[in-house]
Structure formats: structure tokens, C-alpha cells
């Protein structure tokens, strides 16, 4: 494989400039590599949690959905929808950011807005079934899990993306930039040495010519 060498003049000045750049590149490479390792560690921890939680939440949601179907079955459709259409409270999300190794991940907190001490059931009890009450109660209990799943899953997505980007940068430094700089520095050193030798030979020749 022919290593690409930078197109520069073989001078001492250029060489010391390149050496400085090489130093920076090596330092950057080390820092990025550290960042990647740490990110990876956290990502693996988090994604395992993500996986577990998703399985659990999916199971719970499916079950809750079934309950709702049952509740719907014993009521008229119109009644069922009327019962749900005016929720007793509103749910809002408070999102702040947390910085994990330079990745901004969301921290979600939900807040319920509604009548103080109001019941979670948005309807009177007269026309609705007990099944519906139970189904809603169950869904409420899933809510915290559901939201923490959202937070963790989003964080995982963002972290995976950042890890990929960092890896690309690390590779670019490791396999392109640093070898290129090294190669060029070597080239300049050789070129300079050659000039030096040429000079020496010339001097010696002149000296013998004078001595004759």
C-alpha cells in the first residue's frame, strides 16, 4: 500500500510544523479514544436496562390493552369513548438535559396537572363498568415505567450515534492522519539528510581540489 504523503516542501521549518501537528493528532487520538471507551461502557450498561425495560413495558401494555378491550366489550362504544374523551387531568413533560461524555441526553419528569385530589377516573361511576376502572388504574401504574423507558431509549439512541461518530474520528486519526504525518516527516528527514550528504561531498571535493 502506498502511503499518501502530504504535499509539502522538505524544509526544516515545515518539519517542525508537522511534528507539532503530529503531537496534537496523537493527543487528540488518545483523548477521543478515552471518550469512546467511557461512552461505550455507559452505553452498554444503559442499553441492557433499555432491553429489559422494553420487554417489561411491552408486556404490561399489551395486557392493559386487553383489559381495555374487555371493558369496551361490556359497554357501548359510544359510552366507552365518552367516558374517556374528557380526561380529568393533563400530563406534561419536564425535560432537562444531562451531559454524559459530551452527549446531551434528556431527563424526563412528568407532571400531572389537574384538580387537586381529583380521582384518576375521568367520569362518573354510574354508566361505566368496573372493568374500565381497573383498566385505567393499571395503565396509570405502567406510566412511570413507560416514561422511564422513553428517557432511557432516547439516551441510548443518542449515545449510539455519538459513539459511531467518535469511532469514525478515532479511525480517521489512527489510520489516515497520523500515518500521513509520520510518513511526511520521514520523507523530509530523508530529503534533508540527502542534501546534507550532498553538501558534505561537495565540500570534500572542493577541499581536495584546493589541496592539489
Amino acid at each position, binding site marked *: 500500500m502506498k502511503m499518501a504523503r502530504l504535499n509539502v516542501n522538505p524544509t526544516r521549518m515545515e518539519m517542525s510544523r508537522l511534528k507539532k501537528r503530529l503531537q496534537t493528532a496523537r493527543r487528540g487520538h488518545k483523548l477521543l479514544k478515552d471518550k469512546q471507551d467511557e461512552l*461505550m461502557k455507559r*452505553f*452498554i450498561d444503559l*442499553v*441492557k436496562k*433499555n*432491553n429489559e425495560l*422494553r*420487554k417489561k*413495558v*411491552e*408486556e404490561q*401494555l*399489551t395486557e392493559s*390493552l386487553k383489559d381495555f*378491550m374487555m371493558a369496551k366489550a361490556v359497554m357501548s362504544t359510544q359510552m*366507552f369513548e365518552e367516558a*374517556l*374523551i374528557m*380526561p*380529568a*387531568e*393533563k*400530563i*406534561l*413533560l*419536564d*425535560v*432537562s*438535559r444531562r451531559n454524559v461524555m459530551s452527549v*446531551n*441526553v*434528556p431527563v*424526563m419528569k412528568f*407532571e*400531572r*396537572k*389537574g384538580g387537586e385530589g381529583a380521582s*384518576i*377516573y*375521568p367520569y362518573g361511576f354510574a354508566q361505566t363498568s368496573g372493568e374500565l376502572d381497573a*383498566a*385505567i388504574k393499571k*395503565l*396509570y401504574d405502567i*406510566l412511570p415505567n*413507560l*416514561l422511564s*423507558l*422513553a428517557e432511557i*431509549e*432516547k439516551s*441510548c*439512541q*443518542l*449515545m*449510539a*450515534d455519538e*459513539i*459511531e461518530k467518535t469511532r469514525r474520528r478515532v479511525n480517521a486519526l489512527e489510520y489516515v492522519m497520523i500515518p500521513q504525518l509520520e510518513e511526511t516527516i520521514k520523507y523530509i528527514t530523508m530529503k534533508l539528510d540527502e542534501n546534507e550528504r550532498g553538501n558534505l561531498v561537495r565540500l570534500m571535493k572542493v577541499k581536495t581540489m584546493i589541496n592539489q
Partner: protein
Amino acid sequence: MIHMYKIGVVGERDAVLAFLALGMTVKSVESPEEAIRAVDSMAREGYGLIFLTETMAKDMEETLNRYKNQMLPAVILIPGSRGSLGIGLAKIRENVEKAVGVDILSEK
């Protein structure tokens, strides 16, 4: 900065109606095209979190990818009326493979 975001739910009627009771904004849709429009308009309106049923999500890859690398809104898949299709779990795998290079979750 305190800003409160709304939570949206998009999916087929049977699966999402229940979320009305929780005080989320529910948009019932019948086709993936409708779902794409619903998700996009919620994103524009500044929703922080959008739950989307897998039934719809399986045909809206492009839209999902668009929101994937943004912090908000978080589009999170939930099982549809016919139960989990495993898309959400597959997406986690995808993430792992993207970051780690190999699938470390399925070893068990």
C-alpha cells in the same frame, strides 16, 4: 429553562384510546401515511414525547430515522392492538450493533 412539553400518542384507534384517560394528546390514525403526518405535526408543535404504535411504525422507517438523532421529540414505539411486533426490541439491537459492532444482547 423550564418548559413543559406535551405528550402525544399516535396509532390505530383501539390501541391508543386508552391513553386519553392519562391526559395525553391522542391522534388515532388508520394508515402509516396519516401517522407520518400526525407525528410530523406533533413534532412541529413542540411535543416532547410521542408514543407510536408498532403497527404504524413498521412502514415509516424514514420518519423514525429523521427523529432518531434529535434530542426531542423522542418517538417511542409501543405495542399496537395486536400485541408487540418486536420492532422496538429490534431497534435496540440496531443501536447496539451501531455502537458496539456486535450484538451483545442476544447471547443469553
